[in-house]
Each structure stands twice: as structure tokens, then as C-alpha cells.
């Protein structure tokens, strides 16, 4: 049995522009208390020259800096997104080439709404454990789409996170165990050739988000004998700023264990980066011996629960790349007009 695999490098990226959510209220006439009811103040907006590939590139560069490895040693590039620049043509090969990983590597794009990158993480753990590859690069990156005027527009945001999975002996955090729970639950979808997703309104909560995360985390607890008291931090998928706190309460985690990894109130929901950027922020500040429960979720629907133990190597890696807080502090507020320009919402009459 080889040693348990872990995270040898991590990194995130948040675009410069932030749209205060009061701007969406001003333009579309929602109730003024909508942003506070979602516990989200601003959302990060990718620029006109950014997409899930460019954001994933920067997150992966930060992860490579922390891993300190030759990129050509990476044997798999798995890209989780629901905002692919091409419908057909892998984003993963663009990233592998631009990061210096090609040509001897696996590379593909994965799709499972917000959970694709987490599935990539589970597969990476298997690939590293089996000896198939020494290192695997997992990237979760999205420029989330929302129909202008839909309530989803409040939270659909842009950011990316990358994890390099490798041998536990080199890792800043070892993945001790994991558990996955999926069902066919139609809470959120986007049909082919449709620019914006539809969602099942109230259906996105109880039968989707809460049922799947609670089931995955309880499954992990039963499998391992662990409980909420065994974790220093808990990170859940964060479609808004309230769901993670509610699911934490249902599972017996105090909010003090959740708040350090709760990034959505500052940038919105970054979909495939949503839970992972919370993990990234915790790794930025974690101490050796800390334990982290990570539970991403994706519509359609499914959730994974991971038990993670931070090692002494985390300290030497924390300063090797910009932290999530560095990106949170670097921001430029924009209004709805500039947001419309950046997101390509302006229609030209020809």
C-alpha cells in the first residue's frame, strides 16, 4: 500500500472587477434586502479578456509555485468547468500546453455542474494512489452564466482554484478518506445551445444541496468513525453565504469552523471553484495537524466529502504564491454598465 495521496500545491485566482450586488437591485428592481438575505455583498466579474481557461491558468501557476515541481512531471490535467470556451475542443490541452505540461499527459474537461472539479479530485487520488501518475493537476474554474434579471445573477461569479495531487510524503495536506453520494435530481440545468441555465427555484435547496451534502458527510462519518468534533475547519459548496452555515448547523459544525473558508460573501458563487477556493483559503492559514472537512456539491446532483489532515509542509508552501486574501484585497468596483461590457451582454445593432 502506497502512502495516502495529498495536495502538494494549491492556488486560486479571482478577477479584478467586483460588482456590488446593489447594482443588480438597482437595474432589475428586486427587493433591497436581497443581497443581505443571500449574505453576499459583491461578486467577482471576469474581464472581457478572461475566461475559465485564463483563470484556471493563473490558479494552476500558483499551485505549481507551491508544489515546486517540474510541470512536465504532471501526468493528468483534469479541468472541471461548466463554462467551457469551446463546446468541442478540450480546454485541458490549452492549459497543459500553456503550463508546460505537454505532451506526455492525460488531459480532459469534466462536466458535473459545480462538482466536476471535485470528481477530478477523486479520480486524481485514485490515479496517484495506484501509481498511474506521480502528480495530477485538478482545476475548477468558471465564469458562471446567469440570465440578466434572474435571481441567479446575484451570485453567478468568476474565479478558479487548482490543486496538484501527489504523494502524501510531499503533501501540505493528506486526503485521509473520501465518500461520494449522487442521484438524478433535476435542480439546475442548461440545455445544449442555451446561453443561460434554468433552475428549479425552491427545488435547489432541500432535495438537492442539503440532501446530497448531508448524505455525503454522514456517509464519510460512518465510514471513518469521525464526527464534527474531529475537524478544525469545515468547507462546503457555497452557492450563497447562507446555505453553508445552514448545512453546517445540520451536521453539528459551529459557524466558527465554517467562516474561515466562506469566500462567497466577498466574490459570489464561483461554481467549480466554490468549495475549492474555501479550501484554498484555509490552506493559506492552516497549521500542521489541523483537520479539514471538505464537501463540494454539484447540481444534477452529487456531493463528495473529504477528510483532510494538514502536514508540517504547509508552512513552507504558504508564502510561495499569492493567497486568496491577496486576490480578495485586489479589487476594482464596477457598475452594471461595465459589468455588461465585461460579460458580453451588450448587443450591437448592425
Amino acid at each position, binding site marked *: 500500500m502506497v502512502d495516502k495521496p495529498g495536495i502538494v500545491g494549491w492556488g486560486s485566482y479571482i478577477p*479584478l472587477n467586483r460588482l456590488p450586488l446593489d447594482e443588480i437591485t438597482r437595474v432589475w428592481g428586486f427587493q433591497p434586502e436581497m443581497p443581505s438575505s443571500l449574505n453576499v455583498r459583491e461578486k467577482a466579474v471576469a*474581464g*472581457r*479578456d*478572461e*475566461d475559465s*481557461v*485564463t483563470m484556471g*491558468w*493563473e490558479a494552476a501557476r500558483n499551485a505549481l509555485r507551491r508544489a515546486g515541481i517540474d510541470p512536465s512531471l504532471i501526468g493528468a490535467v483534469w479541468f472541471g468547468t461548466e463554462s467551457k*470556451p*469551446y463546446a468541442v475542443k478540450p480546454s485541458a490541452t*490549452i492549459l497543459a*500546453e*500553456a503550463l*508546460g505540461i505537454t505532451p506526455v499527459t492525460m488531459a480532459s474537461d469534466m462536466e458535473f455542474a459545480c462538482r466536476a472539479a471535485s470528481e477530478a479530485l477523486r479520480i486524481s487520488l485514485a490515479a496517484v494512489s495506484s501509481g498511474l501518475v506521480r502528480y495530477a493537476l485538478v482545476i475548477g474554474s468558471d465564469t458562471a452564466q446567469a440570465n440578466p434579471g434572474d435571481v441567479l445573477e446575484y451570485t453567478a461569479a468568476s474565479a478558479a482554484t487548482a490543486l496538484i495531487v501527489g504523494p502524501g510524503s510531499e503533501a501540505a495536506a493528506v486526503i485521509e478518506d473520501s465518500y461520494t453520494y449522487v442521484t438524478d435530481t433535476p435542480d439546475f440545468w442548461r440545455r445544449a445551445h442555451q446561453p443561460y441555465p434554468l433552475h428549479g427555484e425552491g427545488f435547489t435547496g432541500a432535495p438537492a444541496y442539503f440532501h446530497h451534502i448531508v448524505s455525503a458527510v454522514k456517509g464519510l462519518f460512518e465510514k471513518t468513525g469521525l464526527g464534527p468534533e474531529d475537524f478544525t475547519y469545515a468547507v462546503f459548496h457555497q452557492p450563497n453565504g447562507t446555505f453553508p452555515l445552514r448545512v453546517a448547523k445540520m451536521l453539528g459544525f459551529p459557524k466558527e469552523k465554517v467562516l474561515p473558508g466562506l469566500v462567497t460573501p466577498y466574490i459570489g458563487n464561483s461554481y467549480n471553484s466554490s468549495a475549492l477556493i474555501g479550501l484554498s483559503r484555509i490552506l493559506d492559514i492552516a497549521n500542521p495537524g489541523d483537520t479539514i472537512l471538505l464537501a463540494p456539491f454539484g447540481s444534477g446532483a452529487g456531493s463528495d466529502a473529504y477528510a483532510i489532515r494538514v502536514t508540517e509542509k504547509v508552512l513552507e508552501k504558504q508564502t510561495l504564491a*499569492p493567497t486568496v486574501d*491577496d*486576490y480578495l484585497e*485586489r479589487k476594482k468596483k464596477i457598475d452594471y454598465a461595465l459589468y455588461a*461590457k465585461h460579460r*458580453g451582454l451588450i448587443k450591437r445593432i448592425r
Partner: protein
Amino acid sequence: MPMNYSVPRAWRERKKYYRLEAARCLSCGRVNYPPGPVCRYCGSDKLEKIELIDEKARLITWTVIHVPVEGYEEHRPLIIGIVETLDTKARLLTRIVDAEPSELSRGMILEPVLRRIREDGEAGLIHYAITYRPPIKQV
């Protein structure tokens, strides 16, 4: 489907745009970007490939384009600058991103970042290239 930009050319130039692949002259030591078959400084054909992707650069000069050519309209105003890499002293013509013209100053340090620089219409290739921006953490 007509393409405005040659697909083979985009493929051939990908390392130049993604990794800043350049040519160091083994005779005079200068770094050529973009790389060519001979050194543009001394004419030698003894060159080695290097990558500039891990280097920060110093801003030499810049201009702002308000009326760009077709394909770049959505990106305006475009800031185009000349930068010099800190270690290899290569000079590059590049796009400057994530900055207003008023935020730029001669000699400021910039860092490389991959951006989407052009789309070949609605159906053609999307072109990515290294651009430069003020660092996330000021040095």
C-alpha cells in the same frame, strides 16, 4: 467557414504566445523575441530556445488604442506596451491588462498573465497569449 487568422499559424506560434518561447544567441548573448532563424542583433545562426514565462518585466513605454482593428473592438481601450524582462533583458511588444492608462508609469514592474486576446469571429479559434499586468503582490 472562412478564417481571418491562419489556423496553422496559430498552432505554429502557440509556444511563442503561451510560454514566451524566445531565442538566445550563443554568439552575442542577446535574447530575440519573437525568435527567428538568425540573431537580429549580430546575424549569428547559433541560437538556443529559452522561455521567458517565469520572468517579471519592466515597462518601457506604452500607448492607448481607442479605435482598434477588426476583432479587437470589444477589448478597447487597448493598452499596448513595450516591456523588458528583468533577467534576460528581452524586449517584447505586448498587451497591458488590468490597469488604467493613468495607473501606468515608466519603469514599473509587471508580471506575465495568460489572456484571451482575440476571437476569430463567432465560430473560429479563440487566441490566447501572454500579456502583462501590475503584480498581484507589489514588489
